[in-house]
């Protein structure tokens, strides 16, 4: 085994101080393999040493929460003896280097976090961010990532039903791939990562172990990109969705039997993290023999086997006596597996290989020993200047036609059909609302319930003000869920930031976490799980702070769901909420003036809550035909989207507005807490009354019908466009670029 020198310590991503701490905790020098174990377990990706102190304040409890953060994923009760398990995770760095496999394995990893708890995955979503369209790598990365998600998700038979995609130059050197998965479980059959019962066998289940992904956690995910990035290609894991599908069926079948004590998927840091964490959770220890691990390659060292991040592998602890039953099920499905060790009393992990002891470590220092790094924070200097925006310097166009077309042609707004047509979004027959509406809605089989799913983050807002931007992410995501008729019951977040060694980045991180915390407390949505991805920075250029959130909502009666498209000619169009003169930070400002400046739109949480409540009441009272959240592109884009995403032949609309605001702010500003609705004339009175009771501003602004989109402001025509022209722009932009 190689000798441990300062250079070797550095190569393992550990500082001199961290190495000294290892020496202090162990009371001896670790061997090379043991150093490798500390390297991955103390990495930023696995230990959260930079972020943990800030995450403590997130509200994690609620009456429906059965299992909060700490386990693989969170469990939220939905009644009828059922619960949903969900989480969002990042796979950013591998996807930039090898987009197809990076994204594919991201999907694989998040699914395993779900079914490791006994839940069958029933829906996938993803939040993707790419660089500028002009950047030469963007097209390649877009195709690779979407292809990877498509191939992996489709092959495993789990529908990919929603998501978001954004393009901005700040992601040129660091794309973001955040994958979300939701699964269904019976509340009396939830499995945790435990290694209980001394003497119980530890069983390896799944694909053979190879050399892929070694140091994926410690070196790839826990550092910036630079000139040597390409050399990190071997650290990207390779996925096999067919094995994953077999693994899902095998695990769920195993879990129906009585013998399973605990189970953990081998994710980041593979066999190492799963064994240490399972034992750590139970106060026991594990001893195992690496010679029994099914291997894909010859001549692997103990170091390589322990650090391998080969995909599609799980670690089970079963009751003594159930070994054969377990192996029989593995055999039926054609998976590799072996009893590799057993649970021991002493809280240590002892590992043998080819007749020799190679690792003998106490669990606590490895799992809990990484010191929280008290990273310094300081408010970034760019903020003061970037928040300045003088509207008088922005010439207001006489008409809005060109601006509208530019917005519909923006890849941030244009239809994502080119993407979601590559995802099987129908398999399993549970997708009630297909991609294309504000939220996906999945029915819960054998009940009359459904869950609504959405994922959101406007990172431009977070760049301009991380505290406000993060609050808006929560508000917007829950608003999308509300628009489908569901009540939010839980939130999971994926915090994507730059280099934590920079005080400005840590300040952004702290502010964003505070924002999520404050908004979730106000809206009463527990944060039940999450993931942190740091070091999203290349050669000193960091991404916008991107705290992506995903909200899950519950519909007690699936018949009361709602979608965003207009339904009938003659229906009236209404707006709940107030429009202020806010163009700053908007997509309109970017597309028309090429600026990203100002403050994000103001979020009045009290107003937001009231608007959401009214919308929900209207849907449940069957008083409206459609509900659509106003976000990117503002009111104008929201109306066009409702026109286009209605029944097959798009329905036109005419708006008649009166205002003292700038006309472009009225139509394209992104004021928060606004929901666009449509309804039949006979319900107008009732809707008005409901809004008035909750003190929610409500105005009838137009009518559905015709073949054009026409807007008159203060009795002057501002926009008049043939709807088919607008539809063509919106529908074809992304596909035309990507092909």
């Amino acid at each position, binding site marked *: 085994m190689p000798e441990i020198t300062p250079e070797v310590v550095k190569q393992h991503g550990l500082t001199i101080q961290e190495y000294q701490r290892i020496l202090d905790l162990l009371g001896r020098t670790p061997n090379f393999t043991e150093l490798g174990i500390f390297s991955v377990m103390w990495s930023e990706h696995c230990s959260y040493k930079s972020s943990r102190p800030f995450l403590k304040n997130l509200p994690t409890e609620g009456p429906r929460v059965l299992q909060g953060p700490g386990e693989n994923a969170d469990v939220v009760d939905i009644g009828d003896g059922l619960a949903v398990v969900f989480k969002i995770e990042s796979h950013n760095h591998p996807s930039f280097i090898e987009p197809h496999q990076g994204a594919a394995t991201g999907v694989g990893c998040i699914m395993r976090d779900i079914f490791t708890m006994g839940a069958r995955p029933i829906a996938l979503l993803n939040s993707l961010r790419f660089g500028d369209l002009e950047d030469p790598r963007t097209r390649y990365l877009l195709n690779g990532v979407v*292809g990877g998600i*498509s*191939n992996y998700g*489709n*092959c*495993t*038979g789990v529908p990919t039903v929603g998501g978001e995609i954004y393009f901005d130059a700040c992601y040129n050197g660091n794309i973001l791939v955040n994958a979300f998965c939701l699964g269904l479980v019976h509340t009396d059959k939830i499995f945790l990562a435990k290694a209980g019962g001394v003497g119980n066998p530890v069983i390896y289940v799944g694909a053979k172990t190879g050399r892929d992904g070694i140091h994926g956690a410690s070196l790839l995910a826990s550092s910036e990109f630079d000139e040597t990035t390409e050399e990190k290609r071997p650290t990207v894991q390779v996925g*096999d*969705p*067919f*094995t994953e*599908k*077999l693994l899902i069926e095998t695990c769920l079948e195993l879990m129906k039997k009585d013998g399973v004590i605990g189970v953990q998927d081998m994710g980041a840091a593979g066999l190492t993290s799963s064994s240490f964490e399972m034992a750590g959770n139970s106060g026991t220890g594990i001893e195992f023999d690496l010679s029994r691990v099914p291997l894909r390659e010859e001549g692997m060292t103990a170091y390589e086997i322990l650090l391998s991040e080969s995909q599609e592998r799980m670690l089970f602890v079963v009751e003594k006596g159930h070994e054969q039953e377990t192996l029989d099920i593995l055999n039926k*499905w*054609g998976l590799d597996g072996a009893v590799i060790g057993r649970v021991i009393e002493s809280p240590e992990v002892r590992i043998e290989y080819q007749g020799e002891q190679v690792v003998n470590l106490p669990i606590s220092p490895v799992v809990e020993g990484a010191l929280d790094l008290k990273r310094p924070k300081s408010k970034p200097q760019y903020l003061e200047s970037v928040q300045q925006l003088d509207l008088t310097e922005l010439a207001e166009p006489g008409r809005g036609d060109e601006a509208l077309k530019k917005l519909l042609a923006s890849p941030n707004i244009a239809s994502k059909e080119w993407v*979601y*047509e*590559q*995802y*099987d*979004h*129908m*398999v*399993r*027959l549970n997708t*009630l609302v297909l991609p294309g509406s504000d939220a996906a809605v999945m*029915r819960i089989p054998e009940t009359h319930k459904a869950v609504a799913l959405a994922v959101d983050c406007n990172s431009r807002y977070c760049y301009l003000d991380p505290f406000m931007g993060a609050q808006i992410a929560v508000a917007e995501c829950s608003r999308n869920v509300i628009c489908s008729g569901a009540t939010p019951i839980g939130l999971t977040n994926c915090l994507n930031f730059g280099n934590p060694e920079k005080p400005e980045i840590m300040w952004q991180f702290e502010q964003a976490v505070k924002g999520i915390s404050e908004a979730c407390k106000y809206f009463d949505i527990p944060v039940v799980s999450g993931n942190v991805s740091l070091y999203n920075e290349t050669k000193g250029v960091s991404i916008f702070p991107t705290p992506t959130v995903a909200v899950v909502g519950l519909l007690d009666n699936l018949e009361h769901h709602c979608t965003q498209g207009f339904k009938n000619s003659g229906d009236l169009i209404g707006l709940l909420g107030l429009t202020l003169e806010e163009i700053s930070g908007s997509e309109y400002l970017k597309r028309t003036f090429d600026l990203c400046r100002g403050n994000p739109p103001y979020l009045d949480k009290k107003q937001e809550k009231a608007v959401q409540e009214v919308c929900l009441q209207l849907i449940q009272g069957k008083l409206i035909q459609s509900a659509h959240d106003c976000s990117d592109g503002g009111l104008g884009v929201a109306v066009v989207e409702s026109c286009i995403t209605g029944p*097959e032949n798009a329905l036109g609309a005419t708006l008649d507005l009166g205002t003292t605001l700038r006309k472009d702010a009225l139509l394209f500003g992104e004021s928060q807490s606004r929901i666009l609705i449509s309804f039949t004339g006979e319900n107008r009175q009732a809707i008005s009354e409901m809004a008035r009771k909750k003190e929610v501003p409500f105005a009838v602004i137009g009518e559905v019908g015709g073949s054009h989109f026409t807007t008159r402001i203060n009795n002057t025509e501002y926009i008049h466009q043939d709807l088919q022209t607008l539809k063509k722009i919106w529908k074809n932009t992304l596909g035309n670029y990507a092909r």
Partner: protein
Amino acid sequence: MKCGVVVFPGSNCDHDCYHILKHIFEIDTRWIWHKETADLDGYDFIVLPGGFSYGDYLRAGAISRFSPVMKAVVRYANKGGRVLGICNGFQILVEAGLLPGALIQNRSQKFICKTVFTRVEMTDTPFTRFCKDKPVLKIPIAHHEGNYFAPPETIKTMEDKGQIVFRYCTAEGEVSGASNPNGSIENIAGVANEKKNVMGMMPHPERCADPLWPDRDGQLIFKSLIQSL
């Protein structure tokens, strides 16, 4: 009446077919594991469902066709038993030689999941008799290798013998280039063997057969099968 849904390692739509047959049409429906070799004579019809059997490795359906159960499926088909292959099931039937032609990668080289329209070319099969009053079906596809191909002489023979069952078309029933989602020769979406007891189709009828969904044209395929027995 008894029907069977074959399950290969990697089949995904087996559950969907089972749900429609057992819960919507209330037929005695059994799972048939791919390793079973017993005769299938007790079944009134067999379904080979969609999915990614064996990960679609090598070629879609190429490995499944060697699964032990396929021997029994071939015997059953040769004796006149009714076999419906959907998507991956169609690919397996083609690889097993029970249907002519081949299914290759979509022209766009991308997976496509969307609702399309198919025109029923032949209502004189046990799978399509109920389509007499509904010549155009609205039915989803979801595949990467759904591009049907056969040499022109084979297509001619198939046409003469009435083996072409479905063609992709517009909502109005026009078979055109624009309505062809994957490049299939002559817009072919489904075919039958000469005796018309084996049929393969790329679109998924089980995805539009549950009364909970607004689109239900898929029910016609299953109704035809059930009523023909």
